[in-house]
């Protein structure tokens, strides 16, 4: 089967309504999926397991950033793993976008592929959401020495070398900027990490909107970043 060397890392927290479909759909292309259950109070973990994902269970709720790091360390346990994909559990990502991103990284000239909502016009975000995301990107670019168009996108493909060096300590929301910052300061034989961006389509369904973060969260993210 193709993509045996790819692991999808899915942080999972109270997504029982959609997780079985999300895992089932992704498994048609990517056989290796690890869901890191972050202390869900519903039966998300069991549903994910039945849908064919490997489930790692946090004994207590730690946050999405912590779940990603756990997923990374789990995936590193598979010696055949070459690429890790970070993927959201709420069904807002498209499997096809991941396929394109994995094809991109397989060309071998970059070690990281970031998904971006703003490279084409497919994603329909509200004006206020756009503004907040743009501000977050501006802040991240200014502080990390990277040039991205969308820093808070959950969809990324990372080469094994990069995953080995990542150490996310921001358990809650600021982990997205932390990942970018760590990749920005990473050096392989003295050279910066080459990265690319691919356009992705984020599907803001009523479900994901209802679960989505309020704009107030931008304040929380910013303060977590400054007060680290």
């Amino acid at each position: 089967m193709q993509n045996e060397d790819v692991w999808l890392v899915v942080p999972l927290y109270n997504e029982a309504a959609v997780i079985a479909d999300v895992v089932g759909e992704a498994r048609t292309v990517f056989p290796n999926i690890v869901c890191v259950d972050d202390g869900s109070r519903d039966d998300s973990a069991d549903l994910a397991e039945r849908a064919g994902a490997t489930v790692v269970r946090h004994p207590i709720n730690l946050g999405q950033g912590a779940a990603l790091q756990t997923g990374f360390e789990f995936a590193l346990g598979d010696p055949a793993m070459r690429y890790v994909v970070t993927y959201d559990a709420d069904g807002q990502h498209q499997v096809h976008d991941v396929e394109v991103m994995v094809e991109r990284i397989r060309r071998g000239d970059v070690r990281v592929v970031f998904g971006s909502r703003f490279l084409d016009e497919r994603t329909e975000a509200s004006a206020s959401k756009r503004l907040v995301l743009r501000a977050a990107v501006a802040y991240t670019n200014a502080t990390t020495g990277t040039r991205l168009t969308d820093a808070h996108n959950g969809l990324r493909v990372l080469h094994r070398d990069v995953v080995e060096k990542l150490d996310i300590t921001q358990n809650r929301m600021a982990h997205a900027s932390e990942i970018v910052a760590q990749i920005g300061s990473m050096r392989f034989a003295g050279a910066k990490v080459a990265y690319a961006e691919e356009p992705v389509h984020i599907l803001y369904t009523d479900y994901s909107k209802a679960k989505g973060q309020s704009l107030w969260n931008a304040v929380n993210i910013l303060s977590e970043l400054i007060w680290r």
Partner: protein
Amino acid sequence: MSRQSAIQILLILATLVIAWRLLAGTGQRTQAVRRLGLLLLLGLVAYSIIDPSKTWTNLARALGVGRGADLILYGLAVAFLGFVVTTYKRFRAMEVRYTRLARRIALDEAPRAYDRVKSTGSPDTLTGDVPPSPSVKAADAD
């Protein structure tokens, strides 16, 4: 009067910076300095109990502050800020530690990646009421 309050603002700013640098650090020296400061404060408190008439007010005057009570208030504000900063730092450090612990537990209890990939050639192995724990234990045994 206005010149005096300007001095006060400068004093407070300077103290804030010092407090930040002192209290935010976790090294041996900052800890020792903090303890010495506490000892000094205790001595001053004891002295002001013995001679309550003008101790704080005299000290305040020497620093360009009007009353002793004001000086104590400023001191408390700075101390509280320091407390907030140290507490935040300690909580962060503790969070990092218990996260590592919880992650270790989670990974130890999880089926290992490469075992799992081989054992689930067909996803049907996990359907039904069979709990996955026996296979996990078997994987851990070797």
